[in-house]
């Protein structure tokens, strides 16, 4: 293959030859200006929609449809009216509270238990652990709709239609990907370290919690981030299990209900609630973006 022949030549060539891969010349080249222009335009495309929602959330509801691109100034500006009326219909802060409880609880449960499971089924070589691993991998492809109806009926029968029950369901649904990612990493840990711990008198639980789990920490962050992004934004499962008749609505459920019953009438309130729904995500992102981006890259390589 051409790549291989190039590789052989690369090792034979003195490394002193200067690379032109990065256009690292000094001064401002035309190419550089073009690249930056593209990047700045892209930035506008990516930030634009968010700015549009933010801007309209401060405008009177009729101006949102009559002059959607006007700035919220003069007659258009209505202060926080949209926010107060939106909060009144959605009980938004209640939903945000439940979103926090369910997300933090589920992600903690997922990381804690799937790491242990992955460690066990990777270290113990038996037919059943192998089968379990394959079923976990299989579960990642299955669309939610295939299990949706039986799952919500069974959850209801078992009394899982509450936030704690949601954590059990999320542990079940999140297990596939999380076990898969953890297993990939456990395989790369040399067994000698655990053996040394055993010789020093540690039992399996102590070995796991004091030796293995600390080594799993970088992967645990990846797993936590991928699951947080999923659980926080998930709509269908919480809607079907706890959204209909209980007070435990999460943010996506609250937004959808508002749009279904009220959104057509009051665009302003809708814009305001979209802004409130986006704020926690952006804040979370700004504080942990380094981990999120590394986590996504690492999770993909494992996947």
């Amino acid at each position, binding site marked *: 293959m051409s790549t291989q022949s190039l590789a052989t030549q690369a090792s034979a060539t003195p490394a002193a030859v200067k690379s032109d*891969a990065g256009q690292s010349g000094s001064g401002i080249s035309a190419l550089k200006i073009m690249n930056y222009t593209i990047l700045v335009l892209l930035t506008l495309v990516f930030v634009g929609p968010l700015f549009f929602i933010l801007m309209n959330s401060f405008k009177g509801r009729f101006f949102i449809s009559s002059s959607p691109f006007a700035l919220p100034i003069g007659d258009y500006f209505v202060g926080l009216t949209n926010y107060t009326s939106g909060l009144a219909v959605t009980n938004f802060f209640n939903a945000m509270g439940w979103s926090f409880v369910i997300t933090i609880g589920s992600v903690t449960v997922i990381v804690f238990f799937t790491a242990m499971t992955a460690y066990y089924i990777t270290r113990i070589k038996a037919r059943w652990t192998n089968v379990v691993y394959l079923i976990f991998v299989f579960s990642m492809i299955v669309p939610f709709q295939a299990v949706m109806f039986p799952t919500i009926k069974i959850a209801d029968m078992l009394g899982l239609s509450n936030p704690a029950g949601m954590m059990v369901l999320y542990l079940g649904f999140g297990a596939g990907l999380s076990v898969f990612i953890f297993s990939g990493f456990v395989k790369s840990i040399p067994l000698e370290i655990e053996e040394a711990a055993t010789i020093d008198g540690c039992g399996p639980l102590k070995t796991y919690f004091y030796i293995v789990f600390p080594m799993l920490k970088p992967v645990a962050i990846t797993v936590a981030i991928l699951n947080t992004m999923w659980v926080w934004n998930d709509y269908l499962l919480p809607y079907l299990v706890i959204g209909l008749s209980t007070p435990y609505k999460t943010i996506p459920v609250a*937004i959808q209900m508002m749009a279904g019953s009220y959104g057509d009438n009051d665009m302003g309130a809708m814009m305001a609630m979209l802004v409130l729904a986006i704020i926690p995500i952006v804040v979370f992102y700004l504080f942990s973006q380094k981990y999120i981006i590394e986590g996504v890259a690492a999770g993909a390589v494992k996947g």
Partner: protein
Amino acid sequence: MLKSLRKLGLIFAGPTLIAFAIAFAVPFLVGLYLSFCQFTTVTDATWVGLDNYIRAFAPRERFWSALGFTSLVTAVSVVTVNLFAFAIAYLLTRKLRGTNFFRTIFFMPNLIGGIVLGYTWQTIINAFLVQYQTTLASNAKYGFIGLILLLNWQMIGYMMIIYIAGLQNVPGELIEAASIDGASKWQTLRNVTIPMIMPSITICLFLTLSSSFKLYDANLALTNGAPMRKTEMVALNIVDTFFLRVGVEGVGQAKAMIFFLLVSVVAFFQLRVTRRQEVEQ
């Protein structure tokens, strides 16, 4: 050491396996069985054989048209998302200043969930269309374009991150060697860089393919199938069969099983085809 660990299977694997059985394993088997039954809850099922599968494809179910629309959205979004994501990743690995800033911005939409995303884009697209006295819900073409825009805006950042990671792993010597051999930028990209990042391409194709194919939330929020269920994707079609109609749960379950089979087949073939293109690093 492993001997004493072996006995602790219930502690290490028990909780996850129980939750997995409740949420996934048992429902999957029950769902498979129910797809051959007439039922309204899981306890009143009567066997009807392949009836549900035959009914699933009847024109009034609109399952075929949902499949067609889903395939179209998936095909277009997979191509556009990956081309844009790769181009941006390529640009951001050119040793420009401020790449971290741009990377942060481009990734951000990915954290916004489908429901919020759908209503955000619905408002934006309607804001444009209102100037032509029309709305998103009036023409399936607008719904299609809306979904493509939304999926691109959401997924480009994620795929970009994966491509950047791949591009950074291409050894600099390979690029140097290619340029010494007189390869043009385009030849280097085509014959060195792309073969070297095939694993990233495999992953990105898989992720875009499966998330576009399984799309539900954003479809619900953006158009909810309007006009006349013409922009309804498969997942939405299935959910509506269960919860907006009465007495067709079995048909819904059969559709869900067909959906599962399709997703598996498509994912399997895509992985096989792109894995074959990967080179030893």
